């Protein structure tokens, strides 16, 4: 790839991210709808989408709140889902570690699955780009994705009340998660973790305070890591 200036890198990231708005948009819309139906007001739904920007953990928090789980369990379970982003952060460090602090803070704030995956692939393909170009690529990728996420959620708040219960939108949440998980099941270790997760959820369902979710997640992570170690191969 020819040496990229921050400007060309920005637009390259912008164009690469455009198709992903098709995934992010409906997911954000759904959060607006489901959050409103769960009894959250406009400020609270918006607070979630703007401050957290992590759909899966937001839906988890919402679900556990409806189950009347203790506040601490809600926070711990939802944060556990975002732990994978520590890995994103670590893999960005060699590329963006020398960017100005305000840029690194902004990148951290907007480091979601889509912006991470796109940027990481670009850095791997062209590792010799300047730090400024790499940061610009990330901001380019964020430009369509983050506003669409927030805007779609706001739209969901507005249209939510107009959606009839016959559409069974409650079930769009588990369906969406199934759809998001399945493409990630690309190795035996991932499949092992997912199956463990399901079995433990059924076996541990008797535990109070939705603790089964944390324990099932922990057990599944251990199974995934162990299978990977025995297979001796990185996915």
């Amino acid at each position: 790839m020819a040496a990229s200036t921050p400007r060309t890198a920005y637009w390259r990231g912008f164009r690469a991210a455009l198709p992903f708005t098709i995934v992010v948009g409906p997911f954000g819309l759904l959060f607006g709808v489901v959050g409103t139906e769960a009894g959250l007001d406009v400020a609270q739904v918006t607070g979630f989408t703007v401050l957290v920007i992590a759909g899966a953990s937001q839906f988890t928090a919402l679900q556990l709140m409806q189950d009347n789980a203790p506040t601490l369990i809600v926070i711990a379970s939802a944060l556990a889902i975002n732990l994978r982003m520590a890995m994103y952060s670590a893999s960005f460090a060699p590329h963006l570690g020398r960017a100005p602090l305000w840029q690194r803070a902004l990148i951290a704030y907007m480091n979601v699955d889509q912006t991470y995956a796109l940027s990481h692939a670009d850095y791997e393909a062209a590792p010799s780009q300047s730090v400024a170009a790499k940061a610009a690529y990330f901001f380019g990728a964020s430009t369509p994705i983050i506003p669409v996420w927030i805007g779609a959620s706001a739209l969901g708040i507005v249209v939510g009340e107009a959606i009839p219960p016959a559409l069974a939108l409650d079930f769009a949440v588990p369906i969406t998660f199934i759809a998001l998980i399945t493409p990630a099941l690309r190795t035996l270790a991932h499949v092992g973790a997912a199956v463990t997760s399901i079995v433990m959820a059924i076996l541990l369902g008797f535990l109070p305070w939705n603790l089964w979710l944390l324990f099932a997640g922990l057990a599944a992570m251990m199974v995934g890591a162990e299978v990977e170690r025995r297979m001796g191969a990185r996915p």
Partner: protein
Amino acid sequence: MTEIWIIILALGVGTFVIRFSFLGILGNRALPLWLLRHLRYTAVGILPAMVTPLVLWPEATGGQMDPSRIAAASLALAVGLWTKNAIWAIVVGMATLWGIGWLLH
């Protein structure tokens, strides 16, 4: 009410700290391999557990098993595995649920 805001703020701050961790504070330090191995499976380890009771004992049916929801979830899973495309899995899953609901009424 305030409890919801505590959850929102704690999640916002906590998630930012996770995302900022290595990029901002810990710098270029390499993560131990065993930790990386576990972190790789957080999403795929927790999300199926969360989905399971929603599919098997949905609140909308008072916690009773609902064949149409189980069929919809199974088809979404099959399509997701087959196409590796999240959008198709969602479309087929919801269409199944609506289709069965429409046939039964």
